[in-house]
């Protein structure tokens, strides 16, 4: 395939290449922080980010979620079929467990736009892990668990496994080799949507979720 002539490209690159060379510095050492108690740091920072954390277990998470949803009067919860948590909820609902109306994100946004933008009260996603330093959730949306599920509903509920905590973004990017294969969209989420554009006064939910609830799945026996 021959590239079409692109004069702007050639001119810009030509000027840059003709410029005097300059040595690139070596990267000086930088030691990102580590935490003896990652969970404590995560909890502190996530709560400072205005996230609400509920400790659950693999056994009771669904029951606890049902209570939370009920207490908040959530009428319609959007879930991701094909993900473990989404499927568990759909099964539970089918078995008659009292849950809000589940809206599966099972078609394209073009089909579901109205429900997403206007109708659902909450969206439930998993997470790929979290970052202790900043109280940040890591999400890599997938075909099963799309991008907007964590963004359009006014309440975002994210399930986080305790053993997926990392010290810092630097550590997780390096340890998991992110550079070898980035997804369509990788997200770091630290709290609900917020703004302080009006007189530096914090207000939540300006465009995205007004609330972020983290279901922290603790390791058994703790």
């Amino acid at each position: 395939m021959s590239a079409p002539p692109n004069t702007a490209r050639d001119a810009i690159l030509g000027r840059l290449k003709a410029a005097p060379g300059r040595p690139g510095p070596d990267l000086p050492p930088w030691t990102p922080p580590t935490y003896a108690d990652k969970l404590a740091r995560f909890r502190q920072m996530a709560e400072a980010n205005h996230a609400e954390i509920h400790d659950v277990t693999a056994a009771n998470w669904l029951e606890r979620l049902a209570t939370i949803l009920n207490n908040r009067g959530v009428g319609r919860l959007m879930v991701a079929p094909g993900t473990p948590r989404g499927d568990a909820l759909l099964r539970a609902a089918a078995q008659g467990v009292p849950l809000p109306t589940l809206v599966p994100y099972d078609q394209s946004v073009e089909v579901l736009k109205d429900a997403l933008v206007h109708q659902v009260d909450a969206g439930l996603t998993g997470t790929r892990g979290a970052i202790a330093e900043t109280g940040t959730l890591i999400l890599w949306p997938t075909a099963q668990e799309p991008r907007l599920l964590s963004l359009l509903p006014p309440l975002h509920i994210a399930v986080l496994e305790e053993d997926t905590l990392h010290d810092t973004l630097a550590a997780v990017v390096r340890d998991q080799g992110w550079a070898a294969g980035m997804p369509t969209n990788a997200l770091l989420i630290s709290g609900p949507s917020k703004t302080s554009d009006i007189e530096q006064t914090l207000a939540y939910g300006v465009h995205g979720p007004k609330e972020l609830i983290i279901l922290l799945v603790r390791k058994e026996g703790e």
Partner: protein
Amino acid sequence: MTITNLAATNTAAAATPAARPDTVYFFGTCLVDMLYPEAGLAGMDLLRHAGVRVVFPEGQSCCGQPARNSGYVEEAREVARAQLDAFPGDIPIVVPSGSCAGMMKTHYAHLFEGDPDQPRAIAFAARIHELTAFLVNVLGVTLADKGAPVTVTWHPSCHSLREMGVGDEPKALLRQLANVTLVENSRERECCGFGGTFAVRQTAVSTAMVSDKLASVRETGAGTLLSGDCGCLMNIGGHAEKVADGTRCRHIAEFLMERCHGG
């Protein structure tokens, strides 16, 4: 694209423990020479009282900062070269101004880039000390207050803070004085609005800045503002005089001499 050669990193390492010299040069600065000579003299007297011999070379004039900051770099370099010639001995050069000291310490290397005198300029820069930091960190002076009780507030110049890395030293000297109460003003680290030609090029902004600075001084209730830089003093003091505010603005060297050695 050099990362190592930036203004922000050029901040002189504060308090490199130097051996106590028996002789130092004094660089009076052009502003002190003509407008505040008593401040310069007080600086030299303080050094003499601390037991060092002070040499004031007659060939000195100006660090070159006014021309450099106006974009006239060649003129600045030639005047700077005259200072290299005026201070030939390998002994510390003490300066009663953080701004002039900052010019010589942090900008001479760049000013002489590509010039055969650059090694000389770098060696010269390494010998530069701001007066109060020198008194505290190198000479370790102790002061005995003989004056009546007075309340003062402190204005650090931007270049003493951010080029010379002078922090607590002048305030440490003032705290040694038994009858002097030091009250900090709320915007201590903020520029007074002098900035050399800025004061006349940007009169309105400069006036707003100096007026805020004086207001923060007034809030402290201290009748006296001390500083280590005569540019700031000319600006804040000139404004205080213009608005008949009554605040006395003085160079710290003069104040210390008067309190401890009767002027």
